[in-house]
């Protein structure tokens, strides 16, 4: 669905739920998920509906993911870093994660 522009940065390796995906320097976590064709990053705590990055500017809180063990981070505000471990979230967050 989404296509990268030609002038993207150097390759950065991150994992999503343990699976290696190819991100680019300068990507946010949310952008990297979208570029990798991952269609949702969490399910909601109330109805369990799937959610994906939406506003991409820190407002809507739809793109919450676990980054390096810390839950409910806004994927659109976190730049990717080599070796970063991203996990999608299911329902309510577990306290302490």
């Amino acid at each position, binding site marked *: 669905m989404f296509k990268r522009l030609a002038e993207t940065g150097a390759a950065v390796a991150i994992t999503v739920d343990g699976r290696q995906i190819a991100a680019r320097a300068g990507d946010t976590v949310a952008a990297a998920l979208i570029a990798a064709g991952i269609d949702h990053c969490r399910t909601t*705590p*109330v109805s369990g509906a799937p959610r994906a990055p939406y506003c991409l500017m820190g407002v809507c809180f739809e793109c919450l993911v676990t980054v390096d063990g810390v*839950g*409910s981070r806004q994927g659109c505000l976190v730049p990717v870093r080599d070796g970063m471990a991203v996990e999608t979230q299911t329902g*309510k*967050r*577990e*306290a*302490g994660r």
Partner: protein
Amino acid sequence: MAASDFDVAVVGGGLVGVATAWGLAREGCRVVVLDEGDRAVRASRGNFALVWVQSKGLGLPEYAGWTIRSSNAWGGFAQTLKEETGLDVAFQRPGGFHLALSGKELEARANILKRLHNQPGIVDYKTEIMDRSQVAKMLPDIGPEVVGGSFCPLDGHVNSLRLFRTLHTAIKARGVTYLPSHRVETITKEGGEFRLATAQGEIRAGKVALAAGNANMRLAPMVGLEAPMKPERGQIVVTERLRPFLNHPVVTLRQTDEGTVMIGDSKEESIDPAGLTLGVSATEAERAVRLFPLLANVNVVRTWSAIRVMTQDGFPIYDESETHPGAFTICCHSGVTLAANHALTVAPMIARGALDTSLVAPFSARRFHVQATG
């Protein structure tokens, strides 16, 4: 509105008012609830939602009995509301804790409970002091600084916003007339009925029940009653929804049925409901993390201030006017805890036209006048 269209006018559409109105409707009364508009100070939309027993009654032992009566009635009250509306207010009574972060705090807590229990005529409500290992069995996620606490098996909590909505749904279903944006300006009694003046016109009723929170201070003297109040501000911090980890409410912290953690219990003299003292929220949050370190990384999604309804001595006031028979005051801090009493005990008294002194005499505002109580 034609004369005598209502048996009772309830002034105040918060938890105390709607619980009373529902109880009156169950007794067959024709009831109108007069509420202010959206800009009113709304204690019922900002409270902490405990149905709480421990600590209540130091200085007035009858208050402990009154609170336990409501706590015991709460399960049935919630069940009846569910049958009438289909809504579940998520009442739970798993027992609740006060937690101490130092030996000194635990000692102070034990002393308060001892003084409370030593009062003549006190009901035993089985609050016990627990050491750290006893607490940890019930609250496995406590932090290393927690030295112990007190536990009362009668303590519980509820989803208070849903309770509020449920009571409004229930009064509507029972034919109660709810009139928002009807601030009561004056109350007079003429020709055996009360006339309540609002900018929207006059409402007439056979009886009047003042359940307007801190505003009872202004209204009560209009019908020969008094309601000495001392409003104070509390602040609440709310986290994102979390998987259940806390099986018992703590007086300053509870996990709601929806998963959020509410952190609260601050007290400030300010009565500006729009203000927020950041230092107070920060202190509440810091203490919460010391109690439950797993909260350290959790996101806060909301904070707010709300004005507590508080009488000058903290105890409820229930009175019937001597100069204006048929006028009653219902004033209290604990609109959630005492909701079952207001619906099931106080409302029937008002419907009958007389307070049952065997139950509520200790709560008359006459206690504020030493000379008059003899």
